[in-house]
């Protein structure tokens, strides 16, 4: 299941939802707020989602992973709101009979999620400024 939430993500609960007796391998990816980006000190991140479309597109990605790889279960949760350094922003997991499929599915979901799901983040820097992350930035218009 793909979920957008403004509450803290519980990785243990996410993991339990992917248990299956036929699964011998499980791979999880977690995105954590790190203290730097492109050489700048980051103190917080703010995530915003276009929730309706994000959940639809996220479900589509999970379904693609189920079709492409021999998995038992896949799931993902993305947090929104303001997060501090060390906080869990996104959780992706896949269980499968064999580890190849679990690794491949987990990687596929996080890569596609980052590319396609309408979620944005604004970085807050140690110097008090902030900027949306992506192809264009408020502070440095691409125009």
């Amino acid at each position, binding site marked *: 299941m793909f979920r957008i939430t403004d509450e803290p993500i519980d990785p243990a609960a996410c993991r339990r939802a992917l248990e299956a007796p036929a699964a011998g391998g499980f791979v999880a990816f977690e*995105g954590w707020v790190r203290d730097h980006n492109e050489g700048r000190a980051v103190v917080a991140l703010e*995530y*915003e*989602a*276009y929730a*309706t*479309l*994000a959940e*639809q*597109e996220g479900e589509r990605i999970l379904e693609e992973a189920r079709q492409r790889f021999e998995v038992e279960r896949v799931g993902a949760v*993305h947090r929104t709101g303001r997060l501090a350094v060390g906080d869990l*922003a*996104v959780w992706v997991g896949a269980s499968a009979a064999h580890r190849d499929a679990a690794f491949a599915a987990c990687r596929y979901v*996080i890569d596609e*999620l*980052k*590319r*396609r*799901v*309408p*979620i*944005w*983040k*604004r970085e807050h820097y140690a110097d008090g400024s902030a900027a*949306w*992350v*992506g*192809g*264009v930035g*408020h502070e440095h*218009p*691409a*125009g």
Partner: protein
Amino acid sequence: MEKQIDVHYYALFRDLRGKDRETLTTRAATPRALYDELGMGGAFRLDTRAFRVAVNDAFASWDAPLRHGDLVVFIAPTAGG
């Protein structure tokens, strides 16, 4: 033909526009025309390789026909995760 279109703004576009949402009375036939009409082309000239658009909560073509009552959302490059 004149029609009403709801536009919701997220992230960068909300900052640029200074609001979450608005209802526009417009003759724009497509999302592309609506985007140009909003005059965001100065700082953010439409880059259809990087930007996407959704109509009624589904990804849509920049050249799809807009109908009265449609909901449009402009989607800047995403950065989840």
